[in-house]
């Protein structure tokens, strides 16, 4: 046996590994323009067009439309970052065999998933901050620091259910169809939850679908920061809705993961 066997393995620096993974995952995602431009660009463009241009300085029934829409597009942005960052990113690395190489290395597997999750959260924070800035600068949206702080906190927490959804997507969908399928879920779900146009403007038949969607509950929580939420339902109920969705996604992900393991 070689002499290296005598050397006691020093403690591996798990926190250091995690921080490195996060840093480079964020950097990688930022440099991947197909991802970063669309995931930041779409919410910014939509909010500018529908919030700032079409409803400039508008107030209706005591609700500032620019602020109301800020809530919707903030959710739209953070969901996109999670769903595409994790769903599409992971699907790609799974199919390319990269994840396999990572798993054969001494990297703690959780560091990999956490890095992707934290990177998605960071993108969410970036997107929400840009939207807030646009609203305040160009639409005179009155936003207090406390409200902004709460939005950021909700962005970080709200990224978790959709990160889990991204995980399910990555495990179930082949890499080449992952972006398409992610869009097929993301766009209708955003529309039906009222993130684009206020839900009361949707046809009656579609309105009943919203409470079944996780984006709707996150949106209502976001609006409750401004006290703009639909008062017919409780905040606790929205948290419960998101929690149930997260648990279901994790269960499906672990089932899909186990099925994958058995096949390998």
């Amino acid at each position: 046996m070689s002499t290296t066997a005598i050397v006691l393995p020093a403690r591996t620096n798990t926190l250091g590994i995690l921080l490195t993974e996060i840093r480079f995952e964020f950097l990688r995602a930022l440099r991947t323009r197909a991802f970063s431009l669309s995931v930041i660009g779409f919410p910014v463009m939509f909010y500018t067009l529908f919030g700032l241009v079409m409803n400039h300085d508008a107030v209706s029934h005591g609700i500032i439309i620019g602020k109301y829409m800020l809530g919707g597009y903030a959710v739209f942005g953070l969901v996109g970052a999670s769903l595409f960052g994790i769903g599409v990113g992971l699907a790609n690395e799974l199919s390319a065999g990269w994840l396999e190489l990572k798993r054969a290395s001494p990297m703690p597997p959780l560091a990999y998933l956490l890095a992707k999750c934290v990177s998605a959260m960071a993108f969410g924070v970036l997107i929400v901050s840009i939207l807030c800035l646009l609203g305040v600068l160009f639409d005179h949206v009155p936003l207090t620091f406390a409200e902004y702080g709460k939005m950021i906190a909700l962005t970080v927490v709200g990224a978790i259910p959709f990160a889990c959804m991204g995980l399910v997507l990555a495990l179930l969908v082949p890499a080449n169809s992952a972006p398409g399928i992610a869009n097929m879920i993301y766009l209708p779900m955003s529309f039906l939850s009222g993130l684009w146009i206020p839900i009361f403007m949707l046809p009656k038949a579609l309105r009943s679908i919203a409470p079944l969607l996780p984006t709707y509950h996150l949106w209502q929580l976001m609006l409750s920061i401004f006290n703009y939420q639909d008062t017919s339902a409780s905040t606790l109920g929205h948290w419960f809705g998101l929690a149930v969705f997260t648990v279901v996604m994790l269960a499906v992900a672990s089932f899909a993961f186990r099925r994958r393991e058995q096949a390998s």
Partner: protein
Amino acid sequence: MPPTAVETQSNQTFTAGATAPIATLEHITKRYSNGVVALDDLSLTLRPGEIIALLGPNGAGKSTAVKLMMGLSSATSGSVRVFGADPRNTATRLRTGVMLQVGRAPEMLRVREHITIFRGYYPSPMPYAQLIQAAGLEGIEERFFGQLSGGQKQRVLFALALAGDPDLLFLDEPTVGLDIESRRTMWAQIRSLAARGKTVLLTTHYLEEADALAHRIIVINKGRVICEGTPAEVKSLGATAANPTATNGVAGTASRSLKIIRCATVLPPSTLNGIPGVTSIEVAGTLTTITSTQPEATLREMLALDPTLHSLQVNSPALEDAFLSLTRD
């Protein structure tokens, strides 16, 4: 095809306890959930300082065997030990380096960044400069992975496998896409690793690579070890398999001097058959190919009988021939 004499021989060496094995697969059966049996009671042993080449046609079970040793897959039955422990243990992984066929590594990270990440996994990694030099990455450290050529990508993956200065290296088709010079450089690297007491298991499609590099070749087909031995031993076994008449069950004596003679001769096959040592004759156009276990005697006789004989070529059977005959259905 039954396991050969060489295999039992090496097992004896192992039980005699000459050296403690680095990794073992013992009576491994791997059945996938779709019912396909990838490995069928396969056993193999890796010893320190060895370069072992795992050969076999596509679907033979090579990568399944390697994945088991990397702890990426679990066996249906049998035991897998690496450094005497479960390959999935972090302690085991810290001493193991892996190079896999990766379709795409994250393309928007620089070579230097990829290496930084992997070095970070190990408490005492190989020094950065040494790693860059060993993998031949000087000058491309600042490039994005996505900008690299196929050979450069392959060298980055080699560097990642070396990052932890491991005692055991798994290299899956390490020189695919490399030009001749880079291939020779990587071979030299692999040899120097083995010289430093590291164990290297490589799978390859280049038989030339196995021949040039490996101390021991293990040929796998249909999930079983068909034969095992030094490149020379495997070649002679292959020749035996191709010419069962050449030996009387004693592998490696008569067949060790087996040669392939090619020439243009007027002698008909019936005459050639009577010449001592000849085991097979094949006529293609003007060229006759003869396999002989006593090439000197055969040639002397042939030259005496046919003064017009020309275009003479005498070759040792190549590993390729051995491989083809060993893995033939």
